[in-house]
Each structure stands twice: as C-alpha cells, then as structure tokens.
C-alpha cells in the first residue's frame, strides 16, 4: 500500500514538473529523469495487476509523447535517439548472449527448423488472407501484390528486445523461454535477409538504396563477429574493469554505427552470440550487462512509447485492429503446426505463438525503407505498419507474460 501511494505521488509530481518546464538544454536531463522516474513508478504500480513493466513504460511514453500531452516534443525525442540507440545495442547484446550453441536441452538445429517452418507456413497464409481482405474491403493497398508481399514478410518479424525484456522481468527459465528467445533472434536475422532479397528483386530501377540494405546488414553482422572476438580478447587477456570496458565499447560502436549507417541491433546480436559461444567466460560478461539491464528497458521502452505514431493509428485503426487479430491467429496456428511437425511438447505447440507478437525496430525500419522506395503507395504502407506495430507492441508483452506464466516458467 505504502509503495502504491508513493508511486502515485511520484507520477503526479513528475507530470506536474514536466508540464511546467520549458524544453531546452538546461532542462533536458531534468525532463528526461522525471519522465523515467514516472515511467518506473507506473511500471511498479501496474505490475501489481499483472501488466508487464515494459508495457507501462510504453504507455507512459505514448501519453507524455508528442501525439498526446507533448511533454516530450519531437526535438527532445531527437536528442534521446542516441541514448535510445545505446539501450538497443545493450538489449541486442543480451539477446545474442542468450543464444547458446552448446545448450543440450534446446538443440539449435531443431529451433532453426521451427523458425523456418513458421516462415514457410505463415508467409503464404498471410498473403492469402491479406489479399481476400483487400478484395472484401476494397482497401487499395491490399489489392496490390508488392504491398501484400512485404506486409506478409513483416508479419513474420518480431522484436527480440521485447522478448528479452519480458524474460528478464519475469525471471523466466525453461523450454518455452529458450525456444521463443532463440527463435525471435533467428527470425529477425532471416527476415532481414529475406527483406533485402525481395526488396532488391522488386524495387524500381532507381531504388538503388536497397542493395545498400543487404550490404549494411552483412557488414553489420561481420562487424558484430569481429567485435565479439575483440571482447573475448579483452576478457581473456586484460580482464580489468570489464563493466566499464563494455559500457564504453557499446557507446563508441553505437556512435560509429549510427554515423556510417550500420545496424547496431545486428552488430550486437552477433557480438553477444560470439561472446557467449566462443569463450567459456562469455556468460559472465553477458551477466554483467543483464544485472544492470532494467534501467536500459525503462529508457528504451519509454522512448519507444514517445515515438509511437498515434496519428497513424487513428487514421486506420479498424484495419490495424483486423491485421493485429489476423496476425495473432496466424502466429498461434503456425507455431502449433510447426511445433507439431518437429514433435515438440504441448507447451511449445500452444504457447510459443504468444512470444512473437511484439514488434519494434526491424518492422519500423522496413516500413521506412518501403516508404522511400515505393513513393506511390509506400507512405500509406508505412502508416499502416506503424499503427499495427503500435498495437502489437502494447499487447505483445502482456500476452507473452501470460503465456510464460501459464507454462509455469516465471519466477
């Protein structure tokens, strides 16, 4: 009770404080800190009724963001992008670090088949459903082949950062947890490759930027591998100040990646995978980051909430809700079929689909590329994707948490 009252007072005081402050250089840290404090308090408060903390951070991010109360203006969000980038890098590092090739309980080969089957099944089903929906509603975007194809691809995309955040928050351990986490990472890597392939194939001649996408992702992966070996070299030979070293390295690499247009998610996913699998000391490094990761989730999801485009959602909310429900059904069905084919247990069959609902960076990134590459319909495509991602990101963590709880894998 005492904590609930304290949380309520803090949210109230922070809101009043931010409301009364003028945005500027000398108020930046105060506004940011007060926003984080309010988000953290809301997270604790709503967690009591079972809502995942990251959903609360997102919700408060939306409320404080430029589309509702405008406490965080577009300029403030712009300033936060770099901190947000560092947070994403750290989350990606943790996600990659969770993948263990030597793990005997969940064989990587089996999970890879599970992921491939999901994509193979979901992709054509999604294309069919979207096509018939387009026909029925005469929604022009869904009467064309290319938008349907890309939307079906994006339906496969998930959010490893959301997955890791929910797992960390609930302290989950078990087969479902491992399956969903490894699948989410693998899925994202595969989807990025597929997207680059289709984009290069279908883009108009002028859309040379798409070949760059492939290069960027490949180079990012190579940089990630190199960075992984560099971290291993450090922890084997130098050892001292590991936390400081990792923190500085993350800042520097994120900084450089943002300037030379590399994907920091991809870089740090591979760094995490290499560090965890190529060195016996790797897990201790990942643990250092995991232990201090909650602040990273507050920052990342609060800023993500600020950026959720409510205008997009309000303009096509009915279609977005349909797409959300259709994707949810498709995920549950395809996961059930895929798990049955690889002879997995009932928990994986029935629950794993709930682990892939959350969507974030990758999907938004794809939508942005489509918008610039296909200007005649790309912008409305982007609006649609942003609104669906918004809903998925709010409900994804809630449903995944419930699934983990039902599977008995939460702490």
């Amino acid at each position, binding site marked *: 009770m005492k*904590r609930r009252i304290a949380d309520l007072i803090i949210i109230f005081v922070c809101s009043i404080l931010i409301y009364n402050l003028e945005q500027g250089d000398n108020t930046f*840290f105060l506004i940011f800190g007060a926003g984080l404090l309010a988000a953290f308090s809301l997270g604790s408060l709503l967690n009591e009724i079972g809502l995942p903390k990251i959903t609360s951070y997102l919700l408060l991010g939306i409320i404080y963001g430029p589309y509702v109360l405008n406490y965080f203006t577009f300029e403030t969000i712009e300033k936060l992008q770099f901190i947000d980038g560092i947070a994403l890098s750290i989350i990606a590092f943790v996600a990659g670090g969770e993948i263990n090739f030597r793990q005997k309980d969940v064989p990587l080969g089996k999970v890879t088949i599970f992921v491939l089957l999901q994509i193979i099944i979901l992709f054509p089903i999604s294309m069919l459903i979207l096509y018939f929906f387009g026909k029925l509603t005469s929604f022009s975007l869904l009467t064309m082949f290319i938008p349907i194809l890309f939307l079906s691809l994006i339906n496969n995309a998930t959010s490893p950062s959301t997955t890791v955040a929910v797992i960390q928050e609930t302290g989950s351990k078990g087969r479902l947890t491992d399956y969903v986490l490894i699948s989410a990472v693998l899925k994202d890597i595969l989807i990025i490759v597929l997207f680059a392939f289709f984009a290069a194939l279908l883009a108009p001649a002028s859309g040379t930027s798409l070949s760059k996408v492939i290069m960027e992702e490949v180079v990012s992966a190579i940089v990630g591998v190199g960075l992984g070996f560099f971290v291993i070299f450090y922890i084997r030979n*130098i050892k001292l100040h590991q936390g400081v070293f990792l923190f500085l390295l993350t800042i520097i690499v994120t900084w450089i990646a943002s300037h030379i247009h590399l994907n920091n998610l991809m870089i740090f996913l591979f760094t995490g995978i290499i560090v965890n699998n190529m060195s016996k000391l790797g897990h201790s490094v990942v643990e250092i980051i995991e232990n201090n990761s909650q602040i990273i989730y507050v920052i990342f999801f609060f800023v993500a909430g600020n950026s959720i485009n409510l205008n997009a959602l309000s303009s096509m909310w009915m279609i977005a809700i349909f797409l959300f429900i259709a994707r949810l059904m498709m995920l549950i069905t395809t996961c059930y079929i895929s798990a049955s084919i690889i002879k997995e247990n009932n928990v994986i069959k029935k629950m794993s689909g709930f682990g892939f609902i959350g969507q974030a960076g990758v999907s938004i990134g794809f939508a942005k590329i489509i918008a610039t590459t296909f200007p005649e319909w790309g912008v409305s495509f982007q609006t649609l994707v942003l609104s669906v991602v918004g809903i998925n990101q709010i409900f994804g963590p809630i449903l995944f948490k419930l699934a983990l709880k039902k599977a008995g894998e939460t702490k």
Partner: protein
Amino acid sequence: MNEIEIAIFFLMISFIGSLLFSNKKKDNNALSFFINLEIEYIFIGLIIFVIGKNFSTGEILSLKPYMALIMSFMGLLIGSQFSVKLLKTIQPKIFIVLIIIYITCQILIFLIFYLLKIKEPYLMAIVVNTAMPYSIQLFGRLFKVPYKQLFYTILISSLYPVLAIGHYAIYIGYKNFTLFNMFTGILIALVFALLVSTYAQINKKQGINTISVIMLIVLAGLSEYLKLSPLIIGFLSGLFLANFHYSDIFINIYSSFERFFYLFCYIFTGIFLFKDIPQNSNFYLSALLVTLVLILLRKKFLKYLFCKQMATKEKYLNIISIGILPAVIIMDYGVISELKNISSFLWMFLIIHILTEIAGYKFLYNEKKNS
C-alpha cells in the same frame, strides 16, 4: 563537433588504455604505483580537446550536463561516506588534529596564492587543500602493508573531503547567497534522500539498482536547472542518505561505479587543460611552494601533532596526496560558472597532484624500507 572522429579516437585510445591496463600489474615498485593512479586518462581528454579544436563546429559547453551528472555522483558518493553513527565512533582527538591541519594548510596556501597574485586565491586554496585515501590504499595493496598500520592515515584522509567540500559549499553559498538557493538545495537533498530510502525499503534489488540511476539523473537535472552546484547538492544528499535506514544498499550501488567516474574526471581534466597554459612564473613557483607546505604540514606537522595528541607512535602517517578531489571541485565550479577560466585551476591541480603523489610515495617507500 565532428563526433565520428572523436568516436574513432576514443575507441583507439580506450584500446591503448586497455593494453595499458594489462601492464598494470600489481608489483611493488614505483612504476606500478604511478600507472595505477590512472592519470594517463588525461591524454584521452587531451586528444578529444585537440580534435574538438581542429574540427569543431560545436561548443564544448555541450559537455556541461554530463559534467553535472558526474559531479552529482561524486558529491553523492563522498557525502554518503559520513554517517553520524560512524563519525561518533571516531575519537574526538582525531577531529581536533584534522581541523588544526586543515585550517593551517588553508591559511598558508591562501597566503602563498595571495602573495604571488594568483587568481581567486581563496578558492584555489580550498581546491588544493583536499585529500583522498586512494593512493595510500594503493600503496598498501602493492607493498602489502597491513591495513592496521595504515589505519589512521586512511581514516584522516577519508575524513578530509568532508571539510574540503563543506568549506567549498560555504564559499559558494557566501558568493552566490540567496535564501532561495540555500533552502532549495537543502530541500532537494532531503527529498532525494527520503525518496531513495523509501524505495530501498519497498523495492527489490533490481528495482533499487534502477531507481538509483534515475534519481541521479533527476538530481543532476535539478541542479542544472536551478543553477545550483551539482557537487554540493549531491554531497548534501549523500550526507542525508548516509543517515537514513536502508541507505547502505544505495551506497553500495553507487560505490561500484566509483572508479568509472574517476576516469571521466581525468578525461574532463584533459579536455579543459590545454585551453590555456599559464605563462606566469609565479604560477609554477606557487605550485612548488604549496607542495612544500603540504609536505611540511600533512607529513611532519601531522605526525608531530597526532603523536602528541594520541600519545602513540604511528609510522605511516602521511596525507600529502591531494587525490582527484580538486579536479572534481574545479569541474563543479566550472559547471556553475559556465566553464569559464578553469584551465589555470586544472594546471595548478595537476602539478600539485603529481608532485604530492611523488613525495607521498617516496615517504611511504622509505618508511616501508626502514621497517
């Protein structure tokens, strides 16, 4: 500022720094002692400064919020070491010795600066009249001196910062005094400590980790917005916090970041150091004289006074080293004065810091050799 160049250099330097770390073996010799002081991080700052100067399109003022964050942290960390409960366990005679040494040093250092016409002599005297126990602890570790034999030296040099920052707070308060500033500062510190201690009671460990970082951001933001000294606000918050229940959880969390922030203090020193190099011979003379005063008072006089008061014979009694604290005070002063003219302060700090470290090491080494 062209961040990409700075980032690449940062990476290069941190890599070289990492290799240097590998040579930071814990041997019992002078090289090991000086390398472990981590002064080399000044060079990272220096390179950032050079790049900023040659390629810069932006303002070095953009560092101010980050400096405020580090100053709040340092204040919080230092303040949180002083709980009334702990202070009560210390013999009053030690406080008498400490205060006599502090006041004598302050007067003599001020006179040197004043007579040699050094800018802002009183503030400069406050800045260099500090001490921290790091180098004595390092010596103890490297030369395997039993902790018991260094106890009083570590105790006195650990208590010294409370006088130094307290004095600095009074000076700044006097210079920029308004009732609003004073009450707001104390109120912020009190509310901070209350909030933090309430959270410590009702949250799990992970939550406490998170809230401690968020509160630090809020504290730095508040001091910057209200144009108050982040070091003093942090210090007051730490003092209050140290005397509340459950605060030890937070103090442990903050302590784990201690070395990390020290490195940044050296980096910031490097950034601002070369903006202006003092050309005046009086400046260097005063640095030498102050070092001499510190050796005389904080070694010879301290030993005499301590042995007389406590009626004991302490071998390793020596608080010559001024530590990193002067850089922290200078940065804080820089933050509240829009980073104007702090390079001469930093030069003074650096010269005295190096000289006192050499002198301190020499005395300790000889004492160890003769034991």
